[in-house]
């Protein structure tokens, strides 16, 4: 029999439902795999082995009849910026070292209610700020395809854990591409749903108007299963969408005939690695072969996306991170009086990239600068959204590279924040416009995976997932596994 840790979620689901395997067996297989490869990958900040086995036992004992959810009895990992009751949640930061939330994020609660088995909390850039996982205050995570390279970020742990077969699926979070970019660099599939489709309640905020939780797994079919469990209106999140949740798996028809796929010329311009471009263009051609229509489109404000993002995201972050002062939770450094304690705690326990963004954001919101920076950035954001609205009058979905390059070497960009920021150049636009985005593996360059991105209309995850799944029915890039 196949080794259980190589199963996808859909395969696990089928085997569990057929009674061929138990959740405990499956969970034990993944815990064993974690034990074996974790020293090389370092994807997990916390492994909750005992809890996982308890939940697996419970899942097995409750499994008479139909499963409680597609994830019933299926092992899972959660990015460490998402609150988990009674389980440490650090956001990859020293300032939350030892913090144990007294409550579950809505997604955590939905996974628990759906009978999923929590393997542990996975590593990320501190407060999800970064594109390589090198900003984790604890340790970097390594790319399973080449451990000299980064897994991407900020959901690097979520991506690497799937790619290293330590978990069949995980939750990551996005603010500017943090699910899609590491998914692309690690050769797996990752989805950023429409802003508001998945509740942010319990997600430690980075930039509230951009943040969104999304799933990572090997296949698009698996992403549909996970999304089905976590999507939906949440009265605890005022920005959560009240629109009904469709049946995502039912949308996976494999049929892309007549689908109009937009190819924006701005995403194939300067800065895109030539070999990555070749791989992505070849992948897009595959869709044409299956009856989709390729349409050349323009998203003219694309080049403003990175500067716009790097005003709005740090501005919101500077405010969201103001609560971390050591007064109520987390470590507090000693000092002479309250203000010195707060200054030391924040000054020494936030990492350099987080401090940089707090300073940028504070500046952008300051009296006299607000209009020139924050207000202007919001105006440009509107223009970027309008680019997409315009494009979606001509096409059903947009196809682009996920990232301009393959996974880079550790340390290659740590001294050059701007170069690091450009790693998200093709993904931040969907966050700014609130649109859903999907990355699927589409080939290799220098033996490293390349990601193909699809961007969809607001709340049109069904079409997005359909095209991604159709692509995977035609190709087997998502079946490639790193040699560890």
């Amino acid at each position, binding site marked *: 029999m196949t080794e259980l840790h190589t199963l996808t979620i859909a395969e696990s689901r089928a085997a569990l439902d057929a009674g061929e395997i138990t959740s405990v067996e499956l969970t034990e297989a993944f815990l064993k795999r974690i034990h074996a490869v974790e020293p090389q990958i370092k994807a997990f900040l916390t492994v909750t082995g005992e809890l996982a086995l308890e939940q697996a036992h419970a899942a097995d004992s409750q499994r008479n009849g139909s499963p409680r959810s597609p994830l019933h009895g299926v092992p899972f990992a959660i990015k460490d910026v*998402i*609150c988990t009751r009674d389980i440490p*949640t650090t*956001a990859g930061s020293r300032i*939350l070292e030892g*913090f144990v*939330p*007294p*409550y579950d*994020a809505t997604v955590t609660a939905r996974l628990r209610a759906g009978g999923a088995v929590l393997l542990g909390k996975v590593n990320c850039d501190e407060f999800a700020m970064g594109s390589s996982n090198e900003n984790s205050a604890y340790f970097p995570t390594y790319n399973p395809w080449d451990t000299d390279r980064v897994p991407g970020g900020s959901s690097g742990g979520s991506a690497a854990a799937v790619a290293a077969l330590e978990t069949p699926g995980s939750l990551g979070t996005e603010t500017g591409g943090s699910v899609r970019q590491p998914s692309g660099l690690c050769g797996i599939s990752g989805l950023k749903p429409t802003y508001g489709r998945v509740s*942010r*309640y*319990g*997600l*430690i*905020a980075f*930039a*509230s*108007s951009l943040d969104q939780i999304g799933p990572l797994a090997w296949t698009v079919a698996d992403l549909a299963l996970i999304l089905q469990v976590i999507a939906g209106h949440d*009265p*605890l*999140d*005022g*920005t959560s969408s009240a629109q009904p949740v469709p049946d995502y798996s039912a949308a996976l028809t494999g049929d892309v005939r007549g689908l109009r796929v937009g190819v924006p010329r701005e995403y194939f311009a300067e800065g895109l690695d030539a070999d990555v471009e070749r791989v992505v263009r070849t992948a897009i051609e595959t869709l044409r072969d299956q009856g989709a229509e390729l349409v050349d489109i323009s998203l003219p404000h694309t080049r403003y996306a990175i500067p716009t993002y790097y005003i709005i995201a740090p*501005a*919101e972050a*500077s*405010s969201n*991170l*103001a*609560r*971390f*002062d050591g*007064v*109520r*939770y987390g470590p507090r450094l000693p000092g002479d009086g*309250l203000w010195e304690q*707060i200054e030391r705690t924040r000054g020494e326990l936030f990492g350099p990239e987080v401090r940089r963004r707090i300073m940028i954001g*504070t500046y952008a*919101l*300051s*009296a006299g600068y*607000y209009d020139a920076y*924050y207000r202007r950035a919001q105006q440009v954001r509107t223009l970027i959204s309008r680019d997409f609205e315009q494009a979606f009058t001509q096409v059903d979905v947009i196809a682009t590279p996920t990232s301009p390059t393959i996974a880079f070497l550790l340390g290659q960009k740590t001294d050059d924040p701007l170069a690091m920021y450009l790693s998200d150049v093709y993904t931040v636009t969907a966050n700014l416009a609130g649109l859903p985005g999907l990355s699927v593996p589409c080939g290799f360059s220098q033996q490293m995976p390349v990601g193909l991105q699809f961007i969809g209309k607001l709340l049109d995850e069904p079409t997005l997932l359909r095209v991604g799944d159709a692509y995977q029915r035609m190709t087997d890039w998502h079946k490639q596994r790193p040699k560890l």
Partner: protein
Amino acid sequence: MTDYIATIGLEIHAQVRTTAKMFDGCSADYAGGDPNTRVSVVSLGLPGALPVVNMRAIEMAAMSGLAINCTVQHTSVFSRKSYIYPDLPKGFQITQYDQPICTDGWVEIDGDDGQPKRIGIERLHIEEDTGRLVHSTDGASLIDYNRSGVPLMEIVSRPDIGSAEEAKRYFQKLRQILLWIGVNSGNLEEGALRCDANVSVRPVHQKEYGAKVEIKNINSFRFVERAIAYEIQRQIDELESGGHIVQETRGWNEAQGITVSQRSKESAHDYRYFPEPDIPPLVLDDAWIAARRAEMPELPDARRDRFMAEYGLSKQDAELLTMERPIADYYVAAVTAAAQRGGSAKDVANWVGGELFRLLKDAGEGFEVLHERMPPLHIAEVLGLLAQDIVNRTVAKQVFEESFQTGNSPAQIVDEQGLKQISDTGALAALAQVVIANNPKAVEEYRKGKKTAIKFLVGQVMKATKGQANPQAATTALETILDTEV
């Protein structure tokens, strides 16, 4: 010496009396439990917590806006106001900044010239209250987050107030309205209403306003008046002695009766306001606003004018009886009940405003217990007993008080204790004879022409009847004997 004009604007913070806090389902009864027992992940600002608007607070804020003649905006926006202080768990306060829920209203007060004066309202916006710091005796600072997230309204007046007295009357008028429509407890001591004042002065011949000084946290009507009066004089003195006024924030020191500089304009906070991304813009349509209008009771000034027109009350009486809504409602019920027993609206006003308020004050009770302590039927009975000459005023007061204390019906008290007035001419004539025989000195004075001496003799008749004699009838009985028997 130059004459000066004072220009004053008030910023009133009023807690909104909802069951739950502004942005979570947690109880807003912050004083009703031990410290940090009225908290949730939201009001503690834990990582990942999100605010969700309590629509009841929005309804009450909109109603308040309508009550002070504001326009309720179809779209308003929540913003974050950033500053670091341990009682503010998120490091920012959720408030409204450039798009408040209500704008452009007015409140009418009595101006210093005795004429009605409209004080403009610039805006009313919604925000959340902070926690509270408690400084313990060992020097530690403790934080109680029970109050964190309690809904607040900030009501900002235009600089239309011209004196400390007007400021006080405006503050009182706002309290009256907010209490009346049930959105605020009106309790200044507990901080349910708090006031900051902006004060400037300028010589009468000068057109532009003088530099503005903000006085923070003046939390009683008396202190509002005193602090502003002090500040106006301080500024005038400063200008008269050749100095100038700096724009700054000052605090009111109650003990010394002075304002003290707290921070200058230069060191003012940069609050870095920006739209709260966790809360979508608040959109209120016409139907929603109409529903708030429909929810609105008749307001105190309208009720006062109606009392004057319908019941012929003086403005003073009408104002007294519309001070708080339970009084006005009680008064109307009492008038209705008394009408069937021959008591006039004016009589009811006198008894409520006099005897009843005194008894209530002595008992240390609030107006909300009026119906319970003195049912309208009981006050009507007292007036009926008087109208039918069954008791005199002295006995009526005794019966009224006993009814207030025991809850027994006044008619029953009179019956059981035999307190009916003695008006029987024969009985009073006999008594008069006895009193005249026993008080020769007073009789002699009366007969010598000192007619007021009869009051003493009437008093003796009253004493002999334990106050039950009809004083008019007793006087007649005495006069009949004294003036005929020489």
